[in-house]
Structures are given as C-alpha cells and as structure tokens.
C-alpha cells in the first residue's frame, strides 16, 4: 500500500515533531488532539519551522509547503482516510489502549499502527485491538526532526510486513532504525532516566548545581544538550511518570530522586513552565548559566 496520509494521535512535543518531520518529507499529515491543544500545536510547529528558517535550514517556500501539508482536527472520524497511524500520546496504559481501540474501529483494516511508547509493552497494548499483528513500537526521540535514530520493537504477534512498513516510514523520515527487544524504557529513555536521576542526586547532595552538572556531561560526552536540559524539554512530570513506571518494572534502582518529585509538586516542570532544573526564555531557549542559576535559587 502506498502511504501518503499519516494520522498522528497526540499533539505534544513528540507528536508535533513527527508531524513536522513527516510533512517535510512529503507526507500529508492529520494531527489529532483531544482538547484545545491542536491549534497551539500548529502554531508551535510553525515556530519550530521559523527557527529552521532563521538558521537557513529551509526556505520560505519550503516552510509554506510543509505547513500546507499539516492539518489538525478533533474529529476522529477523519482517521478513516489515514494510510498509517502514529500514536504519540502520553504513556498511560489505559488511555493509550482506549485510544488505539477507537482508532482500530475507525481506520481501514490494513492500516499499520505505530506506537511511540517507550515504557509500555507493545504486546500488551496490542491485546486491546483487533489488528494485533499490525501494531509496531517505533520510538522517535525528541526533538524528532533533529535526532537521526529511532528504536523499533515488535510485539509478540507483530507481522513482518508491518515491521517493514514501519522501517520504510522511519527511513523516509531520515531515521536510522535500530530494532531491539521489547523491554520497558527501551534504550534511550532507560539510559537517559538513569543519567537524569543521578544528576538530580548530585544537585540534591550539593555536589554541583544543575548548570555545572549539565555542562560537564554535555561537554565531556560531546552531546548537544545535557541530560537535565533534555529532561526539562521532555517535561519533568513526564520524566517522573516514566521513572515510576521503570521503578515498577525494574525496582528500586529507578526510584526517582526526591528533588524531581519536589520540582513536579512545585509545578517546576521544565520548558513548559519556563523553569525546571534550568531556566528558559519565552522562546524556549535556555537562559545563560548565571540567569538560570539566579532563577533556580529564587525558586529554591
């Protein structure tokens, strides 16, 4: 089947990133979001494209073309027109399964479903739908347009054909696909969470501040962002949610550092609240080390 129209369920950072990336590779994308986040998602995709334009990565006409390929709707009936479905909602088992079940009724039976879940098992998610053989785990890593790798897992009943379609889609999006075995947290989130948690302990113990921890890790390992900035960009509530799920799966070694719990309790959630481990401007840019430190202290 020729895939031209991709439905993306979820307009959070991951869903927006997948939508932007797919549209820039020529797919028509319909973005679904429950609630009022959809219009905001389109605005944020435009903002992301504007940042690319400012860095000469795309032209004005390419920006218009990409935006023209993305539409947003609240009406799930539109799913009947999709050739491929990408589920990119938050990792809550019952919410996700319910949404997949609805999509299962509305999409054509041959349509492959990709789930971006990183902490839930594809085999378990597949139990709630009829197309158990057509569900593939494909974990894109945010920021999706910039990260050139994706993790693929198959469930116990996933069909080879569905895996091939998932691989073709990810490859067209410019991702190297690495297939691994099904396990909560996969490789990227699991190792990132360990790193974030350990860095949080370092701060909590007063060994260093967030800026220092991020700078040492970032510069010594040649990363474009430190783990604490990555956590802030994901959202500390999401990070905490993942850690709790990982703790359920693997025990105490993933028990979240109390500092992360405190930040979430104080609604200090990262980029979306302008303050997490570090501080951010209204344009989502990282503030300078001294500004960040000042704001952190003020809140502490």
């Amino acid at each position: 089947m020729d895939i031209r129209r991709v439905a993306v369920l979820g307009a959070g950072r991951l869903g927006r990133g997948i939508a932007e990336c797919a549209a820039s590779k020529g797919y028509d994308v319909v973005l679904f979001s429950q609630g009022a986040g959809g219009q905001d998602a389109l605005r944020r995709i435009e903002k992301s494209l504007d940042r690319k334009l400012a860095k000469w990565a795309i032209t004005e006409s390419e920006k218009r073309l990409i935006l023209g390929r993305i539409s947003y709707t609240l009406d799930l009936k539109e799913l009947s027109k999709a050739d491929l479905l990408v589920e990119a909602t938050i990792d809550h088992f019952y919410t996700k399964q319910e949404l997949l079940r609805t999509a299962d009724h509305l999409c054509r039976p041959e349509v492959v479903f990709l789930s971006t879940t990183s902490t839930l098992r594809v085999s378990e998610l597949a139990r709630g739908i009829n197309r158990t053989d057509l569900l593939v785990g494909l974990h894109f890593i945010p920021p999706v347009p910039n990260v050139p790798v994706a993790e693929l897992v198959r469930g116990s009943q996933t069909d080879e054909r569905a895996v091939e379609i998932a691989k073709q889609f990810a490859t067209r999006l410019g991702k190297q696909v690495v297939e691994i075995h099904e396990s909560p947290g996969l490789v990227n989130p699991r190792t990132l969470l360990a790193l974030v948690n350990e860095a949080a302990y370092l701060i909590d113990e007063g060994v260093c501040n967030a800026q220092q921890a991020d700078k040492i890790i970032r510069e010594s390992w040649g990363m474009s962002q430190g783990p604490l900035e990555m956590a802030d960009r994901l959202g500390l509530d999401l990070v905490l949610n993942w850690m709790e799920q990982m703790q359920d799966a693997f025990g105490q070694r993933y028990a979240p550092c109390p500092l992360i719990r405190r930040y979430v309790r104080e609604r200090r959630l990262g980029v979306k609240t302008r303050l997490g481990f570090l501080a951010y401007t209204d344009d989502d840019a990282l503030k300078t080390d001294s500004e960040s430190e000042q704001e952190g202290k003020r809140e502490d």
Partner: protein
Amino acid sequence: MNIFVLNCGSSSVKYKLYDMKNEKVLADGRVERIGQDNAVITHQPAGRDKVSKTMPILEHTTAIRESLNLLTHPEHGVLKSVEEIDAVGHRVVHGGESFSDSVLINERTKDILDSLASLAPLHNPANVTGIRAAEKIMPNVPQVAVFDTAFHSTIPPYAFLYAIPYSVYQRHKVRRYGFHGTSHKYVSQRAAELMGRDIADLKIISCHLGNGASIAAVHGGKSVDTSMGFTPLEGLMMGTRSGDIDPGAIFYIMKQEQLNLHEIDSMLNKHSGLYGIAGVSDMRDIERDIANDDKLAKLAYEMYEYRIRKYVGAYVAAMNGVDAIVFTAGIGENTPSLRTALCANLSYLGIEIDEEKNKIRGEDVEISTPDSKVKVFVIPTDEELVIARDTMKIV
C-alpha cells in the same frame, strides 16, 4: 529513427521525442508533482495545440506510461504505437569516474549507477528510477544513459584534483567532476559550426548561465576545466548558490551561528548567490530592482558579472588564449546588459560587441563585430538534442 529523451527528477519527468532523420522535435512535455493526486501532465505535439491534464500519478512508471499514451493518442499523438520508438535516451546527472561517455544501459550499468547515488543524492536516484520505469514499459527498446559529467572527463588530473590529502581522492573520489556537460558540449560544437572551423583547432569558453551556472574551458573540442566541482556548488555566483567561498569561512560561520551540517549546506545552496545578497534569485527581478535604484541588487549584479569575468580570465590563461566565448541558458541567453558589461571588461582580449545583434533573442547569433579578435556567440542550449544524438550513435 525515433528517439524518446527522458529527464527524470524526484517528482517530475520531462520528455522530448525526436525524429532523428532531420533532428526534428515531434513532441515534448512534462509531468509534474509525481506522487500526488493532482499531478499535472503537459504535452505539446509539434505545430499543434498544447494539452494539459491533472490526474493522480503516484510514481514514475505511471508518469512515463501517461506520456506515452499522449504520444500515441488518436487526437494529440504523433505516433501510431509505442513500437515506433527505436531508443530511449536518459539524462543522468552523475557518472562519477566510471562513465566518461554515454553508455548502453544493462544490468551492470544500473548497478554502477546505484553505487553512484551518494555523489548526487538529489538527482541520480531519480534518474535511475526513470530508467527502471522506462525499461518496465518498453522492455525491448534499447536505453542509453547520457551523463552531465561525461563531457568533463577529459579534464586533466592537475585541474580536477583538489590540493587535499591524495588519500581522500583515492578513498572517496573527491575531485572536480563538473556539470552541465551536455550543454557545454552542444554550444561549443555549435559555435565551431557557426565559425565554419574544425572544433579541434579552437579554444572556446562556454558560459552556461542559468539558475545554476558554470563555465567550461573547451580546448580542441575537449573540456579542460570547468567551474563546478565535486558538487554543483563550486564556481560562479548563482541564483541561490554561493559558488566559490573560502572553506575557512564556512567553519567560522558554523561556529558563530551554531549551525549543523544540514543548515550550512542549505545556507550555501538555497539562501546564497543573488538571493543571498539581493533577496531575489531571478536575474529579471535583479534588473527590475536595479532600475528602482536598489543598491543591493546592483551589488549582486556586479558580483555576478565580476565572478564570470574572473573565470573567463582564468580559462584564457588555462588555454593560453581564446577564439570564442559562448553564452547560453536562461541568464546567458536573455540578459544582453550582462554580456555588454562583461565584454566591456574583456576589451584587453580585443573583444567588440555589436549592440544591435546583442539584442536578438531566441536564436543562434554571433554578437561580436567582424573586427573582434574573439568571437562572441549567444546559442540557445539544447541538451535533449545532445542526448538524442548520443543515443542514436550508441544504438
């Protein structure tokens, strides 16, 4: 002999059908927006009305099949059946070091072409897709690949090598390849014909000035140097491409602007050149803005002319003289003021322009005066005809 010439891009197919008895174009056309529901196919039978229709065309095989349907259509067609096509000539952008001339396509050719994809990732895969699609539809018709790079295969190593570690050339074949070869070949041969001289005795500088632009030094009918290099980014200032730039400046810009490889590549290819300086990439817009006293448009124009002048001077030196300079392609053919400005700055070569002839458009014309020491021509390029001729020669 009827030859069907195909130029396949990633989402377009251009075609031309020649009757090679008299090199007459029987029909030409193009399919655009391949992969979409609203692909547009435009077909022009010679001497008759143009036909255009919009339809879903999802891949190249369908695009070529639809083109052939129009060529054999009872009302708009020029052939009774596809059987009347004797050969297909394909434009292929990059032949690497493997192809120094046009070739008959077989399995081995296709394998080599697949391996060359990384040298021209935007063009070669689409060209090969077109070859496979045409083979599927016309399995018994010989297919020929004609390369943009082939004409430049005669450039000597001292001109095609970059002064970087030789092992980089050995490992990755990083060297000057040059592009627009079929155009440089056509216009230099045509200039020799117009001069009534054997091309083997001539030194010609050919200026292909389109949205992409390159200059070639053609000595004795062979390319001995050209301004485009490993990629079509090197050399002249272009519509949106920078042309020559100090590589050190690239590293500095990347550091200062925090750019990654994709961003700097896009900046140099899509945001530079005339567009980068003046905000418009079309020479007609530059001329309009100059008329409105736009200083940056004037600067862009001066930079554009100066860069060409430098290359002409370099190639006069490379060949130890020049007999003719040829202008072709969109800007080369349609911007008399640029030719005037350029030739005024080449008066040391004894070049004189006849301003009346310089205004003539759409035909082969010698624009230099009879006394001019170097002949100057405007020759509309015809790359498809070169492809058709090469195809006929091979089959």
